[in-house]
Structures are given as C-alpha cells and as structure tokens.
C-alpha cells in the first residue's frame, strides 16, 4: 500500500467534467506534467446532463455580436457579474467553439455554410435575444464531454478515478497538493503538485430529493477550500428549474410549456403565466405548494401525436417515474434545484481567494459571470472557455515556491478515516439525515425565503452537521464503502448549505434567484458579493473581502 503517488506534478486537477478535462488538455498541450483525478469517471460528470447548448456569438442563424452576448449576460446577473469576466468569456466563445470543432465535437449542423464554424446550428434559449446556443441535438453536454474524454485518452493524460477529495494540503495558505480516499480500497493517499486546480462542480445535491443534479454534486471542493482558509461567495444564489416531476425531481424540459403546456392547481385552475422567466414561474408554483395544493403540468391539450413527435423523452420519463400518460393525464410537478451560481471565490486569474497556488474553474466557483441568475447556454461555455483559459492565466502568475510537507496532513486525515471505520463515533442514519436536510433546504432556503425560516434552517442544519461530523458510517468495510462516501459527501453538502443560509440571511433584499418575502425589492446596498470564510468558531461573513464591482 503506497501512501502517496510517487510523482510530483506541475498541476493536479481535481474533477473530470468538462472544466477539468478542458484544463488538462490545455496543460498537456503546454507540456506540463499534469494529473487529473475524479471521484467518478469523466463521462459520469454532471456536465453530461446539460442539454440545451453552448453560447457563442457566431451569428450563424440570426445576426449576433459579442457585445449583445455580453449585454444579455450582464442583464441576467442583476448587477452582480464582473463585466471584465463576462467580456472575457463572451469574447473567447467563438474560439472555444472552434477548438471543440477541431477536436471532433459532433455539433448539429445547418446546410449551405461556407466555413466549418458557419455550419454549426444555433438555437435561441431563454434570456437571449437571438439564436446563440450551438448544440448537438439534446445531448450537447454529453457530446462535448465524451469528445474531450476521447481526447484525454488520446493524449495519454495521467488520470485516476475513484479518488474522493478529503482535504487540500496547505502551509501558511500555500497549497501543495491534496489528500484523497481511494474508494475501492479505503486507502488514504496524497498527491503533490506545484499547483492545484479545482473543478468538482456545484453543490445542488445538498437539496437532496429536490434537485435535478446527480447525488454526488455535493460541493466537495468548495468545502475543502473553506476548511483550508479560502473563501466562498454568491452562495445564496441557487437556480431552480420550475418543472421537475414531483418526488423524483426528474427534469421536464422547458419546451413542454413552450409548446402550450399549462400549469394548474388541484382544482384545475391556471394560476400563472407559464412563459414568464424561470424564477417567476418557480415562485408561483412554490407558493401554491406551500399553501397545500399540488401543482400539475397539463399537456393533454396537445394530443398524443404532437407529444410523440415533439417530446418523446418527456412522455417516457413521466410514464416511468410518475406512472402518468401525459397524453391523457396531468402530472404533478415541483421546482427543483439545478444550478448553483455561487461557489469558490476566485479572482480574474481564477486564483482562489485566501490561498496560494490554488485555482478553480466551473460550477464549483463564483467566477463572477452569472451573478444572481445564470443565462441558459452560459454554463457549458463557462466550463469550456475558462477550463481552456485557466492554464494560460496560471502560467503567467507568480506563484509561491515554498514546499509544503504533505505527509503530516495525510496522516492526520488517515487517522480520522480510520477512527470512523473503527466505529469510534456513533453510527448515524446518514440517509435519513440527508433526506431531512434536503427537505429543510427546499422548504426554508428555497424559492421564497424569510428571516425566520432561514434562522430556523441554520439552527437545524448546524445540529445535523454536529451529528454527521462525529458519527461513523453504517458500513464499516474498507473497500467500496458507499455509505462512508455518502457520509463524507453529506458533510460537504451541509457546510455549503450553511454558507448558503448565511448568505441568504445577510442579503436582506430580493435579487435574481434569491427572493426574500420580507425584503421583496432589490436594494442597491447589496450590490456586491457576500463573501464567506471559516475560522475556529465556524463560518462567518467576511465583510472585509466583499468584492466591489
């Protein structure tokens, strides 16, 4: 059993979705010694679930410009985006599509084009004034991720799957590697690197049972950063999709309403404009649910023929998960979390605030692009554009050359895992606790929030956090111990959730995805990000590090 991976790397990338893969491809092209690790395999990353498209002002279908893309993105952010970062992303977008085209991404096409890029089909997504999203049928994320994965294999990039991030190793805030649990064997190992890049995705799974995200989307890097002394920001901005199937939280595409589907309450009455922006529709549905009425999506008016032609996926999913035939029956729906705008606070070079030699890209960050609400088609763009760009920026930055002794940290973390497996803490029902805090978050830290609900949620989440931080998993085996991983993930998810609640309490206004019924209007006093840190006495709002825009 080896304690550490023998080699020392120039760059350690943690997370293997589109952001992580874009970064390692870019690093390898520059001749860096790079290692990419992930708790699952790259083709199971959350990235593969993104359907709609990836924005770039190519103007293939309708006239467009980088300027218009910037304006649409800034508008959606409700004043909280950094215009410099938005401009960088929108400007990079066409070259990103060109890069993906050259790697072989099988985009949807339009006939009669004169150039390779000109042949890429584009569609209009919500919040965009023109058809700007390049797509690959309804599998845009899947096809980009799989093409990057093929490229990673082709380039012979060193990778290790099956590694769960336990902690970043730092000395005087200089990060020199990370410690992992090897899920298949239960070993605790360390990997050393001059620089560490975090790309582990969002924390939507904290809303367990009320999210379209995979269960493993638990903010693993965000919590590791917080524990290591770094900062998070924008955590209170959590985007809900209005129509997921009640109970299973399986997404029913926006096109269902676009094609004429209506939303009704138990008595069959319509109560909202189905085509209003996502946050408005979500609030209307949530209010109904909170008042005790179920809400239904009714597509029966469209007829079976049209449904089979336009949305066969939805017909199948409703039948499978809800036992409902959409052609003849309405189906119960509920809003569900599907994207977290906030995350690890980074500067313009993607460097993590409060740490040295540590960088972050993708949904795990608050890269100051989305602000209070994300524009459709910008998430796939962010993870590929900044994934490719981060290596360029980190190479230009001065980094600390102090060497961090990784063994002490590794041995300490190993002892913790050993004591958990030895059953030194009480065994807790991690699955019941996970359900409970998911429910609390949805009810009190969801679409409509107020101070009383937030304070009570914070109290209960802290209690649950105390339980899970002391307890042992119900399974004590060393190898392939799922409940150990779920317990560790829950610790991370709860920590992120507490940061979300703290931000939501502090932000006494309503802006974008954050709605406070006790402060229903936007307030100019809150025109900057709320930054959260963690000290010996717990997490706190770092007023000295508010990012002025």
């Amino acid at each position, binding site marked *: 059993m080896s304690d550490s991976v023998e080699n020392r790397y120039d760059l350690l990338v943690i997370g293997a979705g589109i952001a992580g893969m874009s970064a390692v491809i870019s690093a390898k092209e520059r001749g860096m010694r790079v290692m990419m690790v992930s708790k*699952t*395999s790259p*083709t*199971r990353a*959350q990235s*593969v*679930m993104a359907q709609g498209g990836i924005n770039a002002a190519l103007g293939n279908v309708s006239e467009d410009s980088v300027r218009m893309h910037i304006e649409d993105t800034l508008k959606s952010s409700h004043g909280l985006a950094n215009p410099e970062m938005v401009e960088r992303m929108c400007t990079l977008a066409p070259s990103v599509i060109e890069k993906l*085209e*050259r*790697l*072989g991404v*099988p*985009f*949807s*096409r*339009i*006939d009669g*084009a*004169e*150039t*390779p890029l*000109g*042949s890429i089909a584009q569609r209009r997504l919500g919040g965009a004034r023109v058809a700007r999203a390049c797509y*690959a*049928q309804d*599998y845009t994320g*899947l*096809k980009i991720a*799989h*093409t990057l994965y*093929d*490229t990673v*294999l*082709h380039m012979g990039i060193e990778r290790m*799957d099956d590694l769960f991030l336990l902690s970043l190793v730092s000395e005087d805030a200089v990060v020199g590697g990370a410690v992992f649990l090897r899920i*298949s064997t239960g070993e605790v190992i360390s990997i050393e690197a001059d620089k560490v890049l975090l790309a582990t995705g969002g924390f939507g799974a904290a809303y367990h049972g009320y999210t379209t995200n*995979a*269960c*493993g989307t638990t903010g693993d890097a965000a919590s590791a950063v917080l524990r290591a002394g770094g900062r998070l920001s924008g955590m209170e901005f959590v985007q809900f999709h209005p129509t997921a199937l009640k*109970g*299973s939280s*399986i*997404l029913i595409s926006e096109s269902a309403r676009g094609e004429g589907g209506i939303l009704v309450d138990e008595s069959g009455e319509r109560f909202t404009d189905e085509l209003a922006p996502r946050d408005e529709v979500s609030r209307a549905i949530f209010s109904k649910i909170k008042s005790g009425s179920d809400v239904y999506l009714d597509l029966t008016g469209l007829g079976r023929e049209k449904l089979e032609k336009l949305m066969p996926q939805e017909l199948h*999913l409703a039948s*499978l*998960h*809800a*036992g409902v035939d959409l052609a003849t029956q309405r189906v119960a729906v509920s809003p569900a979390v599907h994207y977290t705008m906030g995350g690890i606070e980074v500067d313009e070079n993607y460097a993590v605030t409060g740490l040295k030699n540590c960088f972050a890209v993708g949904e795990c960050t608050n890269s100051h692009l989305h602000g209070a609400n994300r524009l459709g088609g910008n998430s796939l763009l962010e993870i590929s554009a900044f994934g490719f760009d981060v290596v360029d920026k980190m190479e230009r930055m001065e980094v600390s050359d102090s060497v961090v002794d990784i063994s002490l940290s590794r041995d300490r973390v190993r002892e913790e895992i050993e004591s958990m497996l030895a059953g030194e803490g009480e065994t807790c029902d991690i*699955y*019941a606790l996970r359900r409970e805090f998911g429910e609390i978050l949805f009810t009190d830290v969801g679409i409509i929030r107020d101070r009383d609900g937030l304070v009570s949620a914070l109290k209960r989440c802290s209690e649950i956090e105390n339980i899970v931080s002391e307890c042992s*998993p*119900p*399974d004590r*085996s060393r*190898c*392939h111990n*799922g*409940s150990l991983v779920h317990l560790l993930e829950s610790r991370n998810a709860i920590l992120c959730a507490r940061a979300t609640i703290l931000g939501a309490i502090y932000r006494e206004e309503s802006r974008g995805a954050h709605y406070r019924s006790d402060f229903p209007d936007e307030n100019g006093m809150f025109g900057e990000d709320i930054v959260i840190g963690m000290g010996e006495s717990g997490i706190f709002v770092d007023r000295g590090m508010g990012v002025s825009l």
Partner: protein
Amino acid sequence: MKLTIGRYRDEKAYDETFEPVRRVSTLLDALFSIRESIDHTLTFESGCRSGICGACAVKVDGRESLACSIMARDGMRVEPLSGYRPLRDLKVDRSLTEDRLSSAQAYLHEYGEAVCSEKDEERSRIQSDCILCGSCYSVCPVVEVDGEFIGPFALSRSYRYASDPRESGDVDILTAIQSHGVWDCTLCGECTAVCPQGVDSKNDILSLRSMSLRAGFSDPSFVSMDFGAGFSFDGAGF
C-alpha cells in the same frame, strides 16, 4: 414487491431477496430504498437518474438494462453486468471501458478542415449518443471467448470518428481495429438489441468492414480460408 439481488462479496456470489419498505418507481429507486432502509451496505453505482450517465447498468432477469430506466417489478432478479470484473454486489470494474477505447483508438486522429452538413451530422448522430454504460459489452458473446475483443461500444465509437468528414486519419482508426476487432464480431446483433440509446453497433461494425475493405484491409478468415469448425475452402472440410 420482492427483488432478488445477485450479490458479490469476498469473491463469493450469492442471491438475497429484499422487499422495499416504501412504494418505488424505477429499479434504481428500489435499490435506493433497500440501501437506505434495509441494508446500508448494498453496493451499486448510480448518477444522473435519467439515463444519461450510464452508471447504473445492470442485468435484470438476465438482460442488460439501466436501473434508472426500467420500472421495478415483483420478482425481478438483478445482477451485475457480465464481461466486467465484479467488485462488490452490483458494482463492476469499469476500467475495462477505457482499455477498450484506447485499443480502438477512437478519437479524431487528424483534423482536416471540412464544412459539415446536416447529412454529415446524421451519419454519426446515433453513435455519438453512446453513454458508455457497457450493456453491449456485457451481452456480447465474443467477449466471453476473446478477452481482448475490442467490443461493440468502442467499435461504434471508431465508426463515429472514421466516418466524420473532419477525420483525415481514418486509415489509422481502421488499422487499430483489424485485430480482435471488426472481423471478430459474430453479427449476432445482441449489442444493438440491448442498447438503451438505440446505437446499432452491429450495423456500425458492418460499415467498418466495408470501409476496411475499401482501405485495402481484408477479412482474415478469407485470407486463411479458415471459418472455424473444420469448414474451409480447401476442400478438407467437405
């Protein structure tokens, strides 16, 4: 409702029957329910819950299926995929997926500038829907007798790149799949039948054979005139 799970622990395989304590919808939902309420040690893989990550592929009553995409039914028997090394209960060693893709060299070898059309998109649309769930590999009878067989999903991916107008190095792809590859398939079509994404690997393999012949490769069984079971064109088999 009762479900039987073909478990695997400490190199021993055995069946155990469970009865989920709540109402369940999909098989994956039933597995969640068992793990959460009856046996916390039940080991299986899952991810997106909506048929796009390929993690939860298992065999149900002997047939490959995504646990998230099939209704749980009374009396079902669930077991791990074949063809992969079992690790714990329903979890198998997926590193084989990567080995097969690397053998097939299924990636864009050499970009050649090309203006693609809707027809070009259509040519590899279905093949690029693959989610690498491994169902086709599990059901493949050739895998049972040839541990090095590249297998259906990797060959479909080879076709996806080899047929791309942007690929100038298609001969390199075809070269990589001549041995333990395109000619070793029995064309039984089981891969096509079990694919949850509708990928038709059997047809892709036939297309790759035609492309191989056009590129100057030949069917090794014709070269050696050996069709197995003593049947050949040298007369001795008749």
